[in-house]
């Protein structure tokens, strides 16, 4: 039986790798094959035909697209991401510190969002049909239906304009004390927590409700077990797999949120770097950032699938 699990997980990993390859080609060809001569753009005013031709040669832009793609891919794997078009600095240097920043933001958010979502999701499934459940459901539907920047603006309106607790816009560059760090992190983390946990609450609630509808949960009810006991003792252990799956899947929504949140709060992370790179059409930088995000997304969704496989007791 163990073998079956391993082969399933192996298969899933193989699919992830193939997906990564397809994604990388999509990212590369979406940016590399489109109109606009990169060399001419780079040279700007100084773009004489000879200079453009020289630069094209130096940058290997005249090579066949497939060859350039291969070279780019090998670069990605060996850690050679190339240099930024905008300022010529190695992309690795540009991304380094910012990557840590984004990870910090995502990590802190996860720390808050997961317990919150678990608590609200499980309790609202327990109290299904009550006013509490309806309020939670309505709020999550509302949160899912509005754009991330609206969650951010609402958070600013509530916490800094109306209540005056937090600064409206944060800059993480000159943080000196722990207190300041908290204040800088507060708004982005609050916003992201709202965005991510709405999904998590819905999926957690759905997972628990589904197990509550099973015959063994009904059996527990019939033999007179109390409601909390049915949920915590009978339903929850079986719902753990789907819940963990839901958590990993919801965390992939962090990526979409992080792009908006880093921009709105001027947070120095990879997403902000990427949005800025779009303004300067710095393609190598955009491609690398895009691959980082796709990789993160893929790791999370693959993790979700693997958790689902591991949690299935029939396969153990």
């Amino acid at each position, binding site marked *: 039986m163990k073998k079956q699990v391993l082969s399933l997980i192996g298969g899933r990993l193989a699919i992830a790798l193939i997906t990564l390859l397809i994604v990388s080609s999509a990212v590369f060809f979406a940016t590399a094959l489109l109109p606009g001569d990169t060399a001419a753009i780079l040279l700007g005013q100084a773009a004489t035909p000879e200079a453009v031709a020289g630069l094209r040669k130096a940058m290997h832009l005249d090579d066949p697209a497939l060859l350039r793609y291969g070279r780019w891919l090998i670069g990605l794997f060996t850690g050679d991401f190339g240099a930024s078009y905008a300022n010529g600095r190695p992309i690795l240097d540009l991304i380094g510190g910012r990557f840590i920043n984004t990870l910090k933001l995502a990590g802190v958010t996860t720390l808050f969002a997961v317990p919150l979502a678990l608590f609200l999701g499980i309790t609202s499934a327990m109290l299904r049909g009550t006013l509490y459940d309806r309020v939670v459901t309505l709020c999550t*539907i509302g949160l899912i239906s509005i754009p991330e*920047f609206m969650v951010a603006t609402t958070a600013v309106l509530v916490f800094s304009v109306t209540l005056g607790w937090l600064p409206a816009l944060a800059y993480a560059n000159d943080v000196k004390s722990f207190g300041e760090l908290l204040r800088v992190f507060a708004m982005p983390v609050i916003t992201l927590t709202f965005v991510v946990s709405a999904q998590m609450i819905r999926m957690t609630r759905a997972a628990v409700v589904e197990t509550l509808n099973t015959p063994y949960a009904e059996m527990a009810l019939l033999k007179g077990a109390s409601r909390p006991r049915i949920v915590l003792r009978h339903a929850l252990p079986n719902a753990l797999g789907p819940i963990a799956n839901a958590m990993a899947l919801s965390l992939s929504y962090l990526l979409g949120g992080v792009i908006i949140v880093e921009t709105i709060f001027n947070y120095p992370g990879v997403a902000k770097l990427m949005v800025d790179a779009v303004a300067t059409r710095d393609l190598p930088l955009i491609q690398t950032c895009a691959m980082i995000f*796709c990789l993160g997304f893929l790791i999370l969704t693959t993790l979700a699938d693997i958790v689902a496989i591991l949690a299935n007791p029939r396969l153990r």
Partner: protein
Amino acid sequence: MTHSVPESVPRPAAAPRRKPGYRFNLVGIIGLSVLLFWAVIAVIAPWVIPYPVGEIVDYDALGPMTAKFWLGTDYLGRDILSRVLMGARYTVGISLASVTLACSLGVTLGMIAAVSGGWLDTLLSRFLDAMNSIPSKLFGLVVVAAVGSSLPVLVLTMAVIYVPGSFRFARALAVNINTMDFVTAARIRGERTPYLILSEILPNILGPVLADLGLRFVFTVLLLSGLSFLGLGVQPPYADWGAMVRENIGGLAFGAPAVIFPCVAIATLTISVNLLIDNLPQKIRDRSDA
């Protein structure tokens, strides 16, 4: 946001079945009327706006709500009410165009994959699943960075982003229909794929597909607003609701109506579509659940 959350709010078992019919319940009616309101506004906006959209009508920028300017003025002193009403054209229009494109393509491919099966099915499914694992906003960023932003680019990009989800949904439904006897009968009497798709499969998955189109419309509105908010969507001098929030974000610190009302407009549109879909008439919902 292409992983659909299972709608698992079971209606109370004791609830009496409504008379068979296509009647909406109250929440559904509210959702439908808000949606219709924005649809009508999108069409008639140029004739009802109180001031020309681009005109600076008040030198008090980011002004409050007054009798003259119902929703205040923006960062240049332009009338917000007029801009919100005109913004409906861009937000609703672009989203509707691209979601229609995405769903017609996705559903067609999905039905073809389900009916033909074999290598074509595998190839399409694998490829589109892979496309699905590019986060939507990211793909938008990359494309806009490469080609620049214009209305056709926006519509096409967002259509491409939502084809995989639509494909997967339609294929799953079509696979079920495909095994039914009437399809087998049609196939045995020698009908070709186009006939099977249009006359046998499509009529039987139309209800759920339309509901799915509604959900995907919400995603598209959110994506468009997000892109516009980042400055990559609708470009000035035109503005959809997301772009309006971006323009006036400077007024956020003192709670200017210029930031709030475009946000409210987006929320009313997306929430009303969600409410409508959650409260579709029984007849349509029965099919959606199948």
